């Protein structure tokens, strides 16, 4: 099959699966559809001649992160969204966060529209994505600052999660 045809197959799977993620009533199916979407994205990376990025996409997103998502969904035993299990309004459903979410959605749409109408095309035909060694070198020289700052950010998030999750904190509730 020609690469163009494969592009449309992977693209269609990615778009349809992503849209279906928000249409599910059962969060487990949402997680699985998101994995399918990541898998399709990984296929697109292979078509772009970037096998390393494709495999990392599977390992990090489809493998590690989504397993944690699945864990959270299963362990919290997240109820089907259509059950009327609790009459108290969830904090995220109060007017403030709802407006914030709507604002974010508008911003996303505006950005997408801006990016799509600029008419800029990247040239992926000639330049193949460099080898693993080149990626590593770039990551630790040109992008060292961004790389390190990101890891500090993740560390902060991790510490925050531990603090929030600890129920028996001394002097706490």
């Amino acid at each position: 099959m020609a690469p163009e045809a494969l592009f449309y197959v992977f693209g269609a799977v990615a778009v349809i699966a992503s849209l279906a993620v928000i249409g599910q009533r059962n969060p487990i199916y949402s997680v699985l559809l998101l994995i399918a979407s990541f898998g399709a994205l990984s296929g697109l990376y292979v078509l772009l001649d970037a096998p390393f990025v494709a495999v990392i996409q599977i390992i990090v997103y489809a493998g590690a992160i989504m397993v944690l998502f699945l864990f959270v969904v299963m362990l919290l035993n997240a109820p089907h969204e259509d059950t009327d299990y609790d009459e108290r309004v969830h904090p995220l459903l109060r007017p403030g966060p709802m407006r914030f979410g709507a604002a974010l959605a508008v911003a996303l749409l505006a950005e997408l529209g801006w990016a799509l109408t600029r008419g800029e095309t990247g040239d992926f035909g000639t330049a193949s994505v460099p080898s693993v060694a080149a990626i590593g070198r770039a990551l630790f020289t040109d992008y060292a600052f961004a790389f390190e700052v990101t890891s500090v950010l993740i560390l902060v998030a991790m510490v925050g999660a531990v603090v929030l999750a600890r129920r028996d904190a001394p002097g706490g509730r």
Partner: protein
Amino acid sequence: MTPLLFGQIVLTLFVFVALLSSAAVMVYMERKVAAMLQQRLGPYLVGPKGLLQPFADVIKLMFKEELRPLAADPFLFALAPIISACAAFAAFAVVPFGAETTIFGWIPEGLRLQVADVNVAVLVIFAIASMSVYGIVLAGWSSNSKYSLLGGLRSSAQMISYELSYGLALASVLLVANSLSLTDIVNHQAGTWLGFIPKWFVVVQPVGFLIYMTAGIAETNRAPFDFPEAEQELVAGYHTEYSSMSFAMFFLAEYINMVTVSAVATDLFLGGWHGPFLPASLGWIWFLAKVGAILFFYIWMRWTLPRYRYDQLMRFGWKVLLPLAVINLLVTAAGVLYLGA
């Protein structure tokens, strides 16, 4: 159709059938070796020396009724064994098991004994291993049974914990070989030092090999790390509610995963198809012998060591194996940097 393409297709089918039959051989081996270790006879009635026992097992499984709990999620319940089996087969696709061959001059160009020569093969294996967790988690969840759910959670927690050490052990080999392609890594191990020490990576990376094997046993959920199936606590873990062929799929996946882990260990640490006495074209005999030895070790271990406790397993994974793997990686990196690869 070019001869090379035809050869490729035949090779793919061959690997598929070989993996299926390796599972059958493993079932027989496991029962025979277990029996020998316990001073019993093991299967001996079906066929000569009980050799047809695996076929009898499969036929029995095929004729069993397919049961599904009423409260199970029908779609995911059916999907889970498929994910497990597919992931198991897919991982072997990037494993090379012999040098290039022309099949006795039958085809003009050399055919690699590897279904797909990917230049990031090691990472592909790692990626597929991380996908196989879903089969087990979903089986546990969709069965809607307490034992299944606990088994599924346990085994996925175990696989995630040991995947880190597994990956770090792989990384230390990659540093020494300076390549992500399994074929390159194997070819790096050709020849000997001082005429008799084989240039296998197990010699330069003994700690890496131990970490890889330990994590590999945990990844494939084998004894002494077989918590998902701890029958005293969890009946049969994630596949408690499965019967007939969908149970057989999990069984198949477990054995094929063992074969893949052993084959990758052979390629990474034991020199793949390189060995003395045999010409390069017969290297696959060495490969088979090495994989067979590791598999025998697996079975031997299962009937020798008692199962750990779950908290011991977690403590060992995070507090012993992971730091050890990190130190091994650091030492290897320093060694490669200062001594050259």
